[in-house]
């Protein structure tokens, strides 16, 4: 399959194409859509406020409360996003990790897509072509969630009870199994790579475990939010030490 790739496609200068101006414009367009939506919603809420028994002051208080509550979680997402910039470039990170998806789903999608090209995410074979295919797969996967929302919301609003009558046990077990199955598979696959990959995944897992324990022991919920960012940084720091001390095979 790799034989069809042009010499340009085999270049590993990801940021050379990942930060193209057109991509910036499209990313900012997605942010624009969210801003327009919020403005329209706020105007509509203000207009219908009296009918909903809520005053203009209470609407404003709700806005402010929501904004303040979002500061911590937003900054936690910022930290994770910055860590992923070298992999996907800024526009893709802004849209995929910052907005529509999450670090977990998007990097999983990218890794799966890279795998179908016979490459590993961020490895020596992570070329421009692999990046573009991974970006395409992330975007199509995110489109799955948005399309499902666009299709299901009107149906659920009409109160179609068929969807609600889905066996509750099925709704509990199958999503959990699909979720853990997908990530367990990706995690186990890392153990087939270099010793430094194995160290990274173990250190990251242990760090998250400690964060969750501390969060519970000290009832510090911020540690739960920041856990992923902290685990990534600790994982990468240990990986750097292990890599530079010669544990990785020469690439």
């Amino acid at each position: 399959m790799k034989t069809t790739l042009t010499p340009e496609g085999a270049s590993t200068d990801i940021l050379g194409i990942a930060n193209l101006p057109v991509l910036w414009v499209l990313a900012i367009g997605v942010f624009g859509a969210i801003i327009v939506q919020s403005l329209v919603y706020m105007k509509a809420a203000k207009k219908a406020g009296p009918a909903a028994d809520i005053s203009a002051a209470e609407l404003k208080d709700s806005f402010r409360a929501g904004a303040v509550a979002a500061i911590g979680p937003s900054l936690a997402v910022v930290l994770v996003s910055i860590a992923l910039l070298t992999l996907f470039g800024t526009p893709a990170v802004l849209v995929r990790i910052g907005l529509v998806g999450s670090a977990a789903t998007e990097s999983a999608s990218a890794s799966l897509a890279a795998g179908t090209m016979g490459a590993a995410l961020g490895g020596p074979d992570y070329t421009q072509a692999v990046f573009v295919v991974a970006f395409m797969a992330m975007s199509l996967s995110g489109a799955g969630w948005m399309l499902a929302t666009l299709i299901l919301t009107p149906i659920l609003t009409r109160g179609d009870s068929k969807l609600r009558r889905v066996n509750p046990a099925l709704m509990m077990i199958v999503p959990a199994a699909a979720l853990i199955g997908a990530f367990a598979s990706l995690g186990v696959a890392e153990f087939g790579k270099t010793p430094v990959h194995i160290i990274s995944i173990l250190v990251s897992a242990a760090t998250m475990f400690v964060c969750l324990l501390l969060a519970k022991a000290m009832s510090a919920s911020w540690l739960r939010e920041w856990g992923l960012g902290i685990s990534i940084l600790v994982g990468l720091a240990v990986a750097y030490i292990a890599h530079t001390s010669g544990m990785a095979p020469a690439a």
Partner: protein
Amino acid sequence: MSSRTAAATSGSIAEFDRTTTRWGRITMITALILSLAAPVYLVFSTDLGITGSMIWAAYLAVAAAFFVLWFVEPITYFPVLGPAAMYQAFMIGNIANKLLPSALVAQATIGAKAGTKRGEFSALMAICGAAMVHVFSMLLFVGVLGTYLVSIIPADVVDVARLYIFPSIIGAVLVQLIVTVRQPRVTVIAFAVALLVLFVLVPAVPALAKPATGIVVLLTATLAWFLRSRKDAAAPTTLVN
């Protein structure tokens, strides 16, 4: 749900529902098109030799892993969010860890109960507030500062970070999932299936390497269903977005 149908008889609320539905859908479809346009642009504007079959193979691998969640998440969140906020939530993302807490805090601040129109409006405003904070911090701290930061970090550090970022994410995500989902039986089944598929099945039948994660997902879901404990009341599932 009954409060929503009852309140819809008020003219102004009906207008609110119409406006938010129309604009919610328009803005979401716009975001969907723009977000797909970026990779499509790269495929067609660059001469990298990417073929349709490469994209199909990647899409099938991703879809096999996630298609169950595409449908389950909207159905799960609908009763909490209501129709208007659905179009916000699945565009802004980070629903469980950011949007829902924001909505709850706002409702508590003004003493509005969830399930009432007051509660729905309060939640909607809170999500607008959360969206503005998030949009601003992403553009400033990631778009401007992050891009600058990456440009000054030494190249060898960037290379190593790129090499090991994925295992550094996946380890933490797995632990978080296992702890929050709290379904030990499902977890054990998932790891057993993953080990069998990746280290026994794939080496024996190399053609299965590409759909391997999809196979693990389907086998885990099927086994988890047939091997489920019949007496436990299942705990609510925590989702990824």
